[in-house]
């Protein structure tokens, strides 16, 4: 090539600086933007993408596939950021040792796999016109989900908060089959018809995901707990309690079986500030037109998080009884330290809250508790 020809070629490159960028169809661009927005909601605003809808072609090209894969490959750092990247501790699966450090220091690199289900989810989010009537939404069928798919669903449910998309997504069979969706958004899910299987979240990548999300889970469960103080519909409280009870009961049982009680510490973190400020989840006087049996059931249902804490109280008694020579001493000591924020007085107060919720005639002190400042 002569010098002139080379110069001309260079000029051509300068004239089109976007020539080397990957090219995708406009509909594919929306899918990629949605994937990026779920992983990094602080940089991309999901809400405007949810209000519109776009016809999606049946297939996507390899370039789009690669770009979606690239966006989702940032899921681990995104999850760690949600946990504030703070140092913490994890129990090993055998319940014997305690690993300390930041999430990436405590665990070996574990791949987070995304299947076709994540693509179906992204397509549904892009194609569904959430500004239109809910009857026009297409169903998102149940799928076999990998941990990566469950993370994508969790991120979608979180990112769509405050839009009609959140309730619509939670009502889909797709979400109904996700243990992580139940753990994070039990308050949005209809009462389960069968037990939720949490085994995938108590080992491997699933357990690391739960650890990473623990501060967020605690904050969300606490926020929902406070909403119970304003709910006057007995039916709503009963449904909420049924979903929460089924979730917490099954999750704590799964954690116990997997020797990973530490994964359920978000229950302790959720309720500790409420105990400190004496904010019982007692609903206001419920609709007096409703039967007493329904109101009684509703009040009892409001105590789901307290019931989970009382299981923690039983566990705490076991941890206290674990001697230096016993198996699991280190784990017991770690969990004792973490439960210290509740302690025996906090556990007793929680039991008193629950007793009042189930009392024949609730006492005035708990039915009219101080409102949060």
């Amino acid at each position, binding site marked *: 090539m002569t010098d002139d020809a080379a110069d001309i070629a260079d000029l051509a490159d300068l004239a089109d600086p976007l020539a080397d960028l990957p090219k995708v169809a406009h509909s594919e661009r929306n899918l990629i933007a949605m994937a990026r927005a779920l992983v990094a909601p602080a940089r991309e605003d999901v809400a405007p993408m949810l209000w519109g809808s776009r016809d999606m072609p049946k297939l996507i090209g390899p370039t789009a596939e690669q770009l979606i894969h690239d966006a989702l490959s940032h899921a681990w750092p995104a999850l760690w950021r949600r946990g504030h990247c703070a140092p913490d501790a994890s129990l090993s699966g055998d319940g014997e040792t305690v690993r300390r450090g930041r999430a990436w220091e405590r665990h070996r690199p574990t791949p987070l796999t995304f299947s076709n289900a994540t693509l179906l989810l992204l397509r549904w989010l892009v194609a569904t016109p959430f500004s239109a009537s809910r009857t026009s939404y297409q169903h998102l069928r149940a799928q076999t989900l990998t941990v990566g798919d469950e993370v994508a669903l969790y991120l979608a449910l979180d990112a769509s908060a405050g839009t009609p998309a959140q309730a619509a997504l939670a009502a889909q069979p797709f979400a109904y089959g996700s243990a992580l969706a139940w753990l994070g958004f039990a308050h949005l899910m209809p009462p389960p018809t069968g037990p939720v299987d949490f085994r995938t979240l108590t080992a491997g990548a699933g357990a690391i995901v739960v650890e990473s999300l623990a501060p967020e889970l605690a904050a969300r469960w606490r926020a929902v707990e406070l909403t119970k103080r304003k709910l006057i519909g007995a039916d709503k409280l009963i449904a909420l309690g049924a979903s929460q009870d089924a979730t917490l009961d099954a999750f704590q049982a799964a954690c116990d079986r997997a020797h990973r009680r530490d994964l359920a510490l978000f229950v302790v973190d959720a309720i500790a500030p409420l105990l400190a400020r004496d904010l019982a989840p007692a609903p206001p006087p419920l609709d007096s037109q409703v*039967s007493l049996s329904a109101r009684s059931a509703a009040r009892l249902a409001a105590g789901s998080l307290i019931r989970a804490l009382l299981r923690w109280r039983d566990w705490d008694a076991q941890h206290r009884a674990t001697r230096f020579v016993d198996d699991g001493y280190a784990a017991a000591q770690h969990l004792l330290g973490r439960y210290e924020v509740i302690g025996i007085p906090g556990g007793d107060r929680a039991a008193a809250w629950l007793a009042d919720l189930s009392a*024949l*005639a609730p006492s005035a002190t708990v039915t009219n508790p101080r409102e949060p400042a």
Partner: protein
Amino acid sequence: MSRAYQIRVSESVVRTVHVEDGVASPLDLLPILPPDRMGDLLGHELEQRGFARDGHTATRTDLDGIVITVDLATAMVTVKLGAKADVAETIDLTARVGNVQAGEAALRDDAIRQLDDRIADRTEQLRREVTKKLEDKLADIRRELDEAIGRTTVAALTERANQLGSIQEIAEDEAGNVTIRVKV
């Protein structure tokens, strides 16, 4: 040209409706003695308050029809009130129709539907009365059961103290606090 006919349908219904409302709640019974014995002491205390014992159950039906049942084995109390009433409703409907047979059938269906709605309303009204009556009594029942549990606790503590040594003195102050002095 088709002719219009005025038809009139009259329907009436008499139904016996039964409504019930109630609550169940655990009793806060301290495990001072084995559960069987605690249940026994509670049963004895309840008998003095008009309850009839039948095995592990103590039941009392008050004059207003409220039934209080205490399961002594599980320390659960159930408070219920039921009511039965004969509800009679009548309805007359008229309409102008072209086809008498079809028109009458439609009007009769409408009448039955309206009667069902009225019966449901009356049943709901009765249920609300039952709920109100029960609700008004719950605080008193709770207070009475709390007293019974307090007396049961004292009886259990006295029995336990007897097991530990010989009781020297039992003193009760005005607030209901009981002091048991035991010589071991």
